[in-house]
């Protein structure tokens, strides 16, 4: 199984129809699909903190495009929030990147291949450490 985690900028590229990075993000999603087991299926995940940072309100009319994507939101429950807080403090990271680190570590523990589309691969690599993830720059 392959999961693709989107950071806030990747979310924004799907949120705005004419976003300059849409094509770049689409190429990485297509690449992840190609590398998945059946050349088709990947699970797209957006951590709740990245959703907030991107300004993605599912109830907003301007979100009608991105709402069509099969994207799972990873909620920030109490346990995840504590974990993210530790990561954010340890590595001086934004809350959204810290939660991406939580999702990376949680998914990798399930033997899932994790790919993160991010504008800051260095931050994601630190957030996910010691778990190795493919942090792809967009």
């Amino acid at each position, binding site marked *: 199984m392959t999961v693709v985690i989107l950071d806030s900028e990747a979310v924004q590229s799907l949120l705005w*129809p*004419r976003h300059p990075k*849409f*094509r*770049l993000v*689409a*190429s*990485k*999603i*297509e*690449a*992840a*699909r*190609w*590398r998945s087991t*059946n050349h*088709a*299926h*990947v*699970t*797209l995940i957006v951590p709740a903190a990245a959703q907030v940072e991107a300004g993605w309100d599912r109830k907003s009319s301007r979100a*009608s*495009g991105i*709402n*069509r*994507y*099969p994207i799972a939101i990873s909620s920030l429950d109490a346990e995840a929030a504590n974990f993210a807080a530790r990561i954010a403090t340890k590595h001086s990271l934004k809350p959204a990147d810290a939660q991406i680190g939580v999702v990376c570590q949680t998914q990798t523990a399930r033997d899932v291949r994790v*790919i993160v589309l991010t504008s800051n691969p260095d931050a994601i690599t630190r957030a996910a450490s010691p778990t190795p993830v*493919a942090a*792809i*720059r967009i």
Partner: protein
Amino acid sequence: MVNPEILNRISSLLQSEDESTVNTSMRLPATLREAANLATEHLGVGPSTTAYVAALLRTAIESALLTGVLETHYEHFPQDRPSLGEIALGVAEIDGNPLANFPALITKAAAEILITHPDASPDDVLLWAEAQQLVDQ
């Protein structure tokens, strides 16, 4: 082009938290049903046959939905469709392939291979790019 309202509805249904179930009248080949039962019981593919089939169905629908959403976007904005070279570069990045440091080489390889192999895959491009790199050394 797929009706956007259909895509909206499918997406909405997949994301619904409504966990009510229905007894389906969908007919399955008896042999497939037995194979699924055995795979569940002896191969550990899922906690139950129902859960296994539901998970497979969800996966298949999500894949089709993602294809439908992207294709709809590309039809509206053809310039947003990634090229084979761009996808191959993404594959190289995911793999940690050193070729990812040479995007121009990948772009050139994609352009060359498409002349004779219009259905070339991202892996074909990377193989060709690697071969070209060896020849140039």
